[in-house]
C-alpha cells in the first residue's frame, strides 16, 4: 500500500514532522529529480522526494516537493538517517539543506566540481582526485561535541585535553572490506570518536542507468550487492514490472522466490565466514565458504556465471530451470546444512565467541529504526520487520517460515539471526520445489519479452520485434514509482522515474547498507577497537550497494 503526496517546499519540515507523529517513523530514502529536460510540463526544475514507511511496516508514502530555491530545511533533527541521505542529495544534485549539521559531499571526492546527477553534467566527465580528505575538521567537530578540545597545528591535531591517538581504519584494510574508511580517535584501545568516509566504490550506477535500457541495467544491478546478485536483479525488474502493470506466471514467481532465498543463503554464508575470520576463527571460513562454491556451481550451470548472474529480465528470466536442477539443488542444500552445522559446532558453546560477541556493538531498536536500518540488522534488535511477511509478494504469504528476531541488537544477535535465517530460507526453498507450478517463465507480450529464436530467424515480424526491443528497450509508462523487496540486507528498493521511453529518466536505489553504515560511527564510539572491527563485519556492509 502506498500513497503519493505533493507538498510545497517550505512545509517540508513541518509536514514530515506531522507524518512522523502519525507513525511514519521510518525514513526509507531521500532523493531529488532534475526535471530540466521537461521544464515545460513540470512546475520547477528540481523536486525533492522523501519516502517514509509507517511503523506498522505495511504502508509507505512518497512525498514530493518542487524546490524553486535550491535550499530547504533539513529533517536530520527528526531522523538520524536523514543526515547522510541529505548529504547525498547535496553531493549529487547541489540542493542544500538549512541547519544540516555536516553538509558536505558523501559519495564524490572533495576535489570534485559540479553535481553529477544533474542532467547538465556529462556522464563521462571524470575528475581526478590528487589528495585524500584528511577528515580533520569533521573529526574535530565530533571531538568538540564530546568536550574534547584539541589544538590544531597547521591543519593537524596537536595536543588535546585527553591523551589521544588518531588512526585510519581503512580504506585499504582487510576488515574494512576494501573500501570503507573510518577515522578514529583512540584513548588506549577505546574509540573516543569516529567518523566514517564512504564513496570509495561509488561507481555511478544511478547515472549509468540514465543511458541504458531497462534490460541493459540488469547486469549493473548484479554489482550492487555482489554477494547475492540475483536478489538485486529481482528487486529491479520487479519494480519495472509493477510500473508496467504485468503479473508474472506462477512458475516464474515461484522460481524467483526460490532464487531469492538461495541468494540470501549465499550472502549470509559469506558474511558469517568473514565475521568469524575477523574474530580469528579461520577454520569456520573454510566450512562456510565451501558451500558457497557449491552454490556457485549450481548457479553457473543455471545462469552461466558464478557471481554476476544477470539472470532476470523484465517480464521473466533468461531461461527456465534445466533438467536435473532439483537434484542438484538438493545436493547443494545438504552441503549448506553440513557447513552450517560444522560451524555452529565450533562456536555455539565456545566461550571466546560468546565473550567477543555478546553485548558488543549494541544498537537499540529505537536507534535502529531512526537510522532506517533494516533486514537482519534491524531484526537483531527485536523488531520483527520483514517485507516477506509485512508486505508479501510472489506468494510469500503461502509459505511457512518464521521471522527470526534477536533481543539485544549486538554482534551475537546479528550473527545468530543470520544463521537462523539460513534454516528458514531452506524451508522456503523446499516448499517451493515441492509444488513448483508448470508453465512458462516469461510473460507473452511482444512489447516486453523477446520473441523465440525461431521467430527471430524465421519471420520478419519476429526479427523486427527483436530489433525494436533491443534497440529501444521496454517502454515503461510515464510515472514515478518506488518498489522494494526483502533482499538479504533488508529492504532493497528502487525509485524509478520514467518518461515513457525505454530508458529510465532517473533511478535511485534505496540501499540498506548505506543507512546501516551511517549508524556505524555512533555504535562504535566508546567501544574497543577490536570490537569495532567485529561490529562492521556483523553489519554486513557491502560497498557496491552502499556506494552504488
Amino acid at each position, binding site marked *: 500500500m502506498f500513497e503519493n503526496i505533493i507538498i510545497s517546499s517550505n512545509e517540508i519540515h513541518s509536514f514530515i514532522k506531522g507524518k512522523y507523529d502519525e507513525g511514519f517513523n521510518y525514513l526509507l530514502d531521500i532523493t531529488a529529480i532534475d526535471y530540466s529536460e521537461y521544464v515545460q510540463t513540470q512546475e520547477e526544475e528540481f523536486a525533492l522526494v522523501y519516502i517514509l514507511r509507517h511503523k506498522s511496516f505495511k504502508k509507505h508514502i512518497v512525498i514530493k516537493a518542487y524546490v524553486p530555491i535550491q535550499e530547504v530545511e533539513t529533517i536530520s533533527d527528526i531522523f538520524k538517517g536523514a543526515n547522510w541521505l541529505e548529504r547525498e542529495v547535496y553531493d549529487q544534485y547541489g540542493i542544500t539543506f538549512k541547519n544540516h549539521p555536516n553538509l558536505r559531499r558523501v*559519495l*564524490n*571526492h572533495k576535489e570534485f566540481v559540479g553535481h*553529477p546527477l544533474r542532467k547538465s*553534467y*556529462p*556522464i*563521462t*566527465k*571524470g*575528475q*581526478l*582526485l*590528487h*589528495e*585524500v580528505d584528511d577528515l580533520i575538521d569533521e573529526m574535530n567537530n565530533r571531538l568538540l561535541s564530546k568536550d574534547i578540545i584539541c589544538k590544531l597545528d597547521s591543519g593537524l591535531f596537536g595536543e588535546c585535553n585527553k591523551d589521544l591517538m588518531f588512526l585510519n581504519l581503512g*580504506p*585499504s*584494510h*582487510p576488515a574494512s572490506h*576494501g*573500501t570503507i574508511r573510518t577515522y578514529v580517535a583512540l584513548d588506549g584501545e577505546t574509540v573516543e570518536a569516529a567518523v566514517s568516509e564512504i*564513496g*570509495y*566504490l*561509488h*561507481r*555511478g550506477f544511478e*547515472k*549509468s542507468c540514465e543511458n541504458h535500457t531497462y534490460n541493459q541495467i540488469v*547486469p*549493473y544491478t*548484479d*554489482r550492487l550487492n*555482489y*554477494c547475492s546478485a540475483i536478489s538485486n536483479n529481482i528487486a529491479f525488474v520487479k519494480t519495472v514490472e509493477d510500473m508496467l502493470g504485468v503479473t508474472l506466471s506462477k512458475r516464474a514467481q515461484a522460481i524467483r522466490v526460490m532464487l531469492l532465498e538461495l541468494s540470501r543463503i549465499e550472502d549470509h554464508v*559469506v558474511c558469517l565466514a568473514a565475521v568469524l575470520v575477523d574474530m580469528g576463527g579461520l577454520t569456520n*571460513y*573454510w566450512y562456510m*565458504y*565451501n558451500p*558457497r*562454491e557449491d552454490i*556457485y556451481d549450481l548457479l553457473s550451470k543455471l545462469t552461466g556465471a*558464478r*557471481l*554476476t548472474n544477470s539472470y532476470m529480465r523484465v517480464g521473466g528470466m533468461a531461461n527456465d530451470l534445466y533438467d536435473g536442477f532439483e537434484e542438484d539443488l538438493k545436493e547443494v542444500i545438504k552441503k549448506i546444512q553440513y557447513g552450517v552445522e560444522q560451524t555452529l559446532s565450533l562456536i555455539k558453546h565456545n566461550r571466546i565467541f560468546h565473550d567477543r560477541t555478546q553485548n558488543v556493538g549494541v544498537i537499540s531498536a529505537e536507534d535502529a529504526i531512526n537510522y532506517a536500518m533494516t533486514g537482519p540488522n534491524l531484526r537483531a534488535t527485536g523488531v520483527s520487520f520483514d517485507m516477506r511477511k509485512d508486505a508479501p509478494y510472489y506468494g510469500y504469504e503461502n509459505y511457512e517460515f518464521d521471522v527470526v528476531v534477536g533481543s539485544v541488537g549486538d554482534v551475537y544477535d546479528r550473527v545468530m539471526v543470520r544463521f537462523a535465517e539460513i534454516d528458514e530460507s531452506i524451508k522456503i526453498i523446499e516448499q517451493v520445489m515441492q509444488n513448483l507450478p508448470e508453465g512458462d517463465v516469461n510473460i507473452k507480450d511482444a512489447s516486453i519479452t523477446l520473441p523465440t529464436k525461431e521467430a527471430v530467424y524465421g519471420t520478419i515480424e519476429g526479427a523486427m520485434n527483436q530489433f525494436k526491443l533491443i534497440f529501444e528497450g521496454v517502454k515503461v509508462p510515464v510515472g514515478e514509482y518506488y518498489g522494494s523487496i526483502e533482499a538479504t540486507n533488508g529492504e532493497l528498493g528502487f525509485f524509478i522515474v520514467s518518461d515513457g521511453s525505454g530508458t529510465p529518466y532517473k533511478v535511485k536505489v534505496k540501499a540498506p547498507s548505506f543507512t546501516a553504515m551511517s549508524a556505524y560511527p555512533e555504535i562504535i564510539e566508546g567501544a574497543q577497537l577490536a570490537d569495532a572491527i567485529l561490529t562492521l563485519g556483523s553489519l554486513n556492509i557491502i*560497498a*557496491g550497494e552502499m556506494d552504488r
Partner: protein
Amino acid sequence: MELDPHTLPTDTAITTTLDEAIGWARESSLWPMIFGTACCAIEFMSVAASKYDISRFGAEVVRFSPRQADLLIVAGTITYKQGPILKQIYDQMSEPKWVVSMGACACSGGFYDNYTTMQGIDEIIPVDLYVGGCPPRPEALLDALLSLQNDLRTNTYDPERHKDFKGALDNV
C-alpha cells in the same frame, strides 16, 4: 631447475647463475597484497579458499601491508576517489614488485564508463599482467600467477622495466 635430495649425494655442489637461483627462489614465494574493492575481491576469496587454493602455487601468504608484499593484486573497480590510495599503496611496496590487474574494471574501467570510475589502473600505476573477465574465474587469476612465475623462472628481473611510466598522479 629441479633438485631432488633423494637422488643427489648430500655433498653435491651445483652451479647456476645468480639470476637463476634468485628467480627460482622468488618464483614460489610471492606474497600477494590484495587491493580488493568490489565484486572481483569476492572471487579472490574463492581463489584463497579450499577449492581453488592458491597455496598450491606458493602464494598464499596474503599480506595486507604493502611493506610485506611483492605482488599487488588489484581486484575491483578503482574510482578516482580511490586513486591516491592505490598509488600510495603501490609506492609503499619495496622492489622487486609486480602488479596484477584483476577484472575488467581494474584493467579498463569495465562497463563503468562514467564520471567516477578510473578507466583502468594503468592511468596511475604500471601493470605487469592484465586478467580479463567480469569477474575473472578463479582459474584465470591462477593462470596469471603461473605465467608470472614462469616469467620469473625464465627471465631476469628487470627493475627498470617501468622507468618511463608516468601516471596521472605522478609529480603532483
